[in-house]
C-alpha cells in the first residue's frame, strides 16, 4: 500500500486488497453454514442497526484513487467495481469478517447446503425491485452466474474453472448452484463478492455483445444508491427510492471525489470536509486526530506484509532454513511497525495468522516454543553461525521492493539494521512496480518484500495462496501466488482436507499449517496491513467501531461499504 501518489495503481490495489478481505471468520461456535444445514440467519437485515432513523444528510468519502473517475460501473471491471458493488449492486449474502462471521442475508433471504457442500440452494428475497422499477427475481441471479460462464473475462474468481461450478439453475424463487467438489471455501466468493446484475438490461444487444467491457455508465442495481451524476472529479450517489429495505438508506446523498493524491484527501479529512476516510494519514495524531474531537480512527488488520525468501535450491542462502529462522528472529517487528508504518499497522507473527482478527486460529504457546514470540538476536546469531556467517563475515543478501512504497522502504531500513546485527548485509533494491512484479512472479530474487493481499473468511485463504504447491511454478515461470516456491506435500494435504472438514477440524488444520510456518519459515511476516479508516462524528453517526464492527470500515471494501452506508445517519436530520 502506497503512501505516495507516485503510483495510482497502488491506490487501486489498496482498495482491491481490502476488498479481498470482506468476508467473515466462521467460528465453530457461531451459527455457520458449516454445521447448520438450514443456512443462517437473523431475519432483520442490517441486524446491528437497532433503532431506525430519519432520512437526510450527505456523506463525503475520502479515498484516494490517483485517477480521475472513468464513470464506469461495470461490476466485473476490477478498476471500477469497488465503486459499484455495495453501492449499486448487491450480493446474495453479506458475510462480515470482523464480527464473528455474522451473515446478513441480502438478495438471498436464506440458503441451504447440499450434501458434502457440493451444492447450495439460495432462496431469493421477494419484493426487491431494480432501481429502474423492474422486479428482481431468481432468474437475474441465475443469469449473473451463467454470464460468468459465457464470458470468462467476467468470471473473476474462476468459479466455473477453479471452484468447479457446473450448473446454476433458477426454479421459482430458488437458485441452485452445483459444484464438482466441496465448495464451502468458495461461499464468500459467490455469495458475498459477486454482485447480481439485472438480466433485462444485460441481455440487451449492446451489453450482451461485450458484458466484460461494457461501460455501464448508469448502473441499474438493487442497491441503496443510484449514480447521479458522475464526472471525472466526482461521483455523486443519491438514495434509491425503491430500495427494498424500507426507510433506508438514511443518508440521502454521497459525494465521492476522485482524489489524485493522499495530500489533499488528508487535508479534507482533517478539516472535516470529508467524513469517511479510507487512506493512510502520516503522523495521524498531529495531522488528523488533534484537529477535532470529532475525528476518530480505527484500522483493523486484515493481511500480512511479509518477506518472501526464495526457497528454490538455486538460491542456496535463502533456501537454507537456519538463515530464514535467523532473519525471522532478528527482526524487531514492533520497531518495524512503529517506524515503518507509523505504528498504524500492527506487527505480524511467524505463523502468518492475523491478530486479533483470527485469534482463534493462533497458538501462542507453539510460537513461544519455537522462539518467535519476541526478537532473539543471540539465537539468530548462533543460527547464522551454524550457517557459517557472522557480523565479521556477513552474508550479503538483496531484497527487492517496490519504488514508492515508502512505508516499506522505511520498514526495510529498520530490518536492514536488525539484520546487520546478526551478520546479514541487506541491500534494499527498489524496483518499478512492473519490474518488481515480473521478478516476483518468475522467482528472480533472493528476498522480496511484499504484502500478500488475498485473505478470506479464515487464514486458510491467505495461507493457501502462499503455501499451496499448486500455486507455485518453477523458477522462470510465472507463479500465481506461491512466489517463494514452497513445496511441502504434508502441508498440501492439510489444505486438501480443509474444504470438506467441519469447522472444528478446520481450526486444527489451520493450527497445523501455522506450525508448518514455524518449522519451515517459508515466508517471514513482518507487519499486518490494515483497513484504513478515519471517521468524523460531527454530523454523521452509525459508524462501525471496535464495539460494533458490523462491517469492514474502509470505503473501498465491497460490499461492506453498502452495509456501512445502510447504518450511517445524519444527526442534524433527526
Amino acid at each position, binding site marked *: 500500500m502506497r503512501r505516495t501518489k507516485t503510483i*495510482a*495503481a497502488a491506490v487501486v490495489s489498496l482498495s482491491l486488497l481490502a476488498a479481498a478481505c470482506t468476508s467473515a471468520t466462521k467460528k465453530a461456535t457461531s451459527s455457520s453454514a458449516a454445521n447448520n444445514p438450514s443456512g443462517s440467519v437473523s431475519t432483520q437485515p442490517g441486524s446491528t442497526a437497532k433503532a431506525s432513523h430519519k432520512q437526510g444528510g450527505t456523506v463525503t468519502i475520502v479515498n484516494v484513487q*490517483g485517477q*480521475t473517475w472513468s464513470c464506469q460501473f461495470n461490476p466485473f471491471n*476490477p478498476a471500477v467495481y469497488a465503486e459499484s458493488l455495495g453501492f449499486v449492486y448487491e450480493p446474495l449474502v453479506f458475510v462480515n469478517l470482523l464480527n464473528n462471521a455474522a451473515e446478513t442475508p441480502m438478495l438471498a433471504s436464506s440458503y441451504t447446503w447440499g450434501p458434502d457442500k457440493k451444492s447450495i440452494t439460495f432462496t431469493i428475497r421477494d419484493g426487491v425491485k431494480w432501481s429502474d422499477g423492474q422486479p428482481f427475481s431468481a432468474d437475474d441471479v441465475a443469469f449473473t452466474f451463467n454470464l460468468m460462464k459465457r464470458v470468462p473475462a467476467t468470471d473473476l474468481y474462476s468459479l466455473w474453472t477453479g471452484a468447479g461450478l457446473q450448473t446454476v439453475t433458477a426454479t421459482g424463487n430458488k437458485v441452485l448452484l452445483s459444484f464438482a467438489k466441496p465448495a464451502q471455501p468458495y461461499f464468500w466468493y459467490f455469495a458475498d463478492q459477486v454482485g447480481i446484475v439485472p438480466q433485462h438490461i444485460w441481455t440487451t444487444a449492446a451489453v450482451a455483445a461485450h458484458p466484460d467491457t461494457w461501460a455501464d455508465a448508469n448502473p441499474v442495481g438493487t442497491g441503496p444508491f443510484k449514480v447521479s451524476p458522475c464526472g471525472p472529479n*466526482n461521483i455523486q450517489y443519491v438514495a434509491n427510492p425503491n430500495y427494498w429495505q424500507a426507510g433506508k438508506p438514511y443518508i440521502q446523498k454521497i459525494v465521492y471525489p476522485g482524489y*489524485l493524491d493522499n495530500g489533499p484527501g488528508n487535508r479534507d479529512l482533517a478539516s472535516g470536509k470529508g467524513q469517511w476516510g479510507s487512506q493512510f494519514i502520516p503522523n495521524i495524531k498531529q495531522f488528523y486526530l488533534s484537529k477535532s474531537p470529532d475525528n476518530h480512527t480505527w484500522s483493523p488488520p486484515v493481511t500480512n506484509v511479509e518477506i518472501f525468501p526464495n526457497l528454490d535450491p538455486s538460491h542456496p542462502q535463502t533456501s537454507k532454513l537456519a538463515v530464514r529462522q535467523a532473519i525471522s528472529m532478528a527482526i524487531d517487528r514492533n520497531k518495524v511497525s512503529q517506524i515503518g508504518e507509523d505504528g498504524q499497522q500492527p506487527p505480524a507473527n511467524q505463523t502468518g495468522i492475523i491478530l486479533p482478527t483470527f485469534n482463534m486460529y493462533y497458538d501462542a504457546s507453539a510460537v513461544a516454543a519455537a522462539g518467535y514470540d519476541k526478537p532473539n538476536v543471540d539465537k539468530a546469531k548462533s543460527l547464522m553461525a551454524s550457517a557459517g556467517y557472522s557480523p565479521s563475515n556477513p552474508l550479503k543478501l538483496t531484497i527487492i521492493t517496490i519504488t514508492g512504497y515508502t512505508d516499506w522502504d522505511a520498514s526495510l531500513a529498520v530490518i536492514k539494521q536488525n539484520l546487520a546485527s546478526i551478520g546479514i548485509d541487506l541491500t534494499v533494491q527498489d524496483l518499478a512496480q512492473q519490474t518488481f512484479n515480473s521478478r516476483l*512472479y518468475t522467482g528472480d530474487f533472493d528476498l522480496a518484500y511484499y504484502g500478500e493481499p488475498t485473505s478470506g473468511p479464515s487464514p486458510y485463504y491467505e495461507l493457501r495462496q502462499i503455501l499451496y504447491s499448486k500455486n507455485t511454478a518453477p523458477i522462470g515461470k510465472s507463479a500465481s501466488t506461491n512466489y517463494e516456491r514452497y513445496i511441502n506435500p504434508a502441508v498440501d494435504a492439510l489444505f486438501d482436507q480443509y474444504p470438506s472438514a467441519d469447522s472444528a477440524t478446520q481450526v486444527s488444520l489451520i493450527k497445523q499449517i501455522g506450525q508448518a510456518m514455524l518449522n519451515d519459515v517459508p515466508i517471514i511476516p513482518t507487519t499486518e496491513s490494515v483497513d484504513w479508516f478515519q471517521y468524523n462524528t460531527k454530523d454523521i453517526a452509525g459508524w462501525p467501531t471496535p464495539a460494533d464492527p458490523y462491517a469492514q470500515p474502509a470505503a473501498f471494501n465491497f460490499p461492506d461499504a453498502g452495509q456501512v452506508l445502510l447504518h450511517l445517519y445524519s444527526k442534524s436530520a433527526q
Partner: protein
Amino acid sequence: MRYVVRRLGFFALTLWVALTLNFFIPRFMPGNPLDALRARTHDRLSPAALEQMLTSYGFKPHQNIFVQYLEYLRNMFTGHWGISIGATLGEPVSTIVWQALPWTLGLVGVTTVLAFLLGSLIGVVAAWRRGGRLDSVLPPVFVVTSALPYFWVGLMLILVFSVWTHGWLPSDFNYDPDLLPEFSLGFIENVLKHAVLPAATILIASIGAWILTMRNNMITTLAEDYVRMGRAKGLSNSRIMTDYAARNAMLPNLSGFAMSLGFVITGSILVEYVFNYPGLGYQLYNAVQNTDYPLMQALFMLFTVAVLVALLVCDFAIAWLDPRVRATGSR
C-alpha cells in the same frame, strides 16, 4: 520552397522517431499490462479472466510485434487510440485525452506563451532603459528564478499560499471535486482559483530565461548600426525600439523559444504532478506507472505533435518577421 520541404520532412521524421521510440521502449522493458493488472488486483482474481478482459480491451501481446507496430502507427494517425488498460481500465483513451487536453492547454499552454511574451517585453524594456533601475535589478533576480526547479517553486507556493494560510488558495485539482462543470461565474472563478498557483509556478520558473535572453539580444541589437541610424534619422524612440531594435532582437528569441519547448513540457509535467492537475502530463505519468500502453502512446504522440505545431508557429512567425528567412529559408 526547398526550405518548406525540408521542414516538413523534418517534422515527419521527428514524429516518426518519437512514435517509434515510444512504441518500443516500453515493450522492450520488463513488465507488461497483465502483470500490472494482476498486481493491482493482487492476484485474487483469476489471471485467465484478467487476460481475457485485457484482450477484449484490445491488448494483443501474442501478436507479432512488427504487426503491432504497423497497426499502432496506423491507429495513431487515424485517431483510433484504443482503450485504457491501466488504472482507468476500460476508459477510452480519447475520452481521457479530451478530458485532460483543455486543462493542459489552458494552464500550460497559455502560461508558457504568456511567460514568453511577457518576458520578452520586459527584456526589451530593460535593455532599452540600459543602466536604469529596472535593468540593474532585473538580471540578477531572473538569473536566480531561471535556475529554480519547477516542482520546488510549486511546493513553496503550496506551502506559503495553501498550507500556511490554511487553504487560502487551492493547491490541487482543476476545480473543487464537489462542483459540477458548468458555465457559471462561480465555477469559472473556482477554476481560476485552482489555476493560480500552478500558473504562477510556470510563470516564475520560466519567465526569467525569456527576460534574460531577450534583454541580451536586445542589447546586442541596440549596438547595431541600423539602430544608431534610426536615431540619426530622428525617429521617435518607440519607433526605434519596436521596428528597429525589438523586431530584430526577437528573432533569435523566437527560435530559442521553439528550441526550448521540449523543456517547457518537462516543467509542466512536474507542475501538473505537484498540483495534481488532471492534465495530459498527469495522465501520462499515471499511464507510465500502470503500463497503460494505449494511453502512453496517445499522450506521447500528442506531446510531440504539440511541440511540432508550436515549432511550426515559431517558423511562421520568424519567416514573417525576417525577410532573409523568407528568401533563403536558412538562418
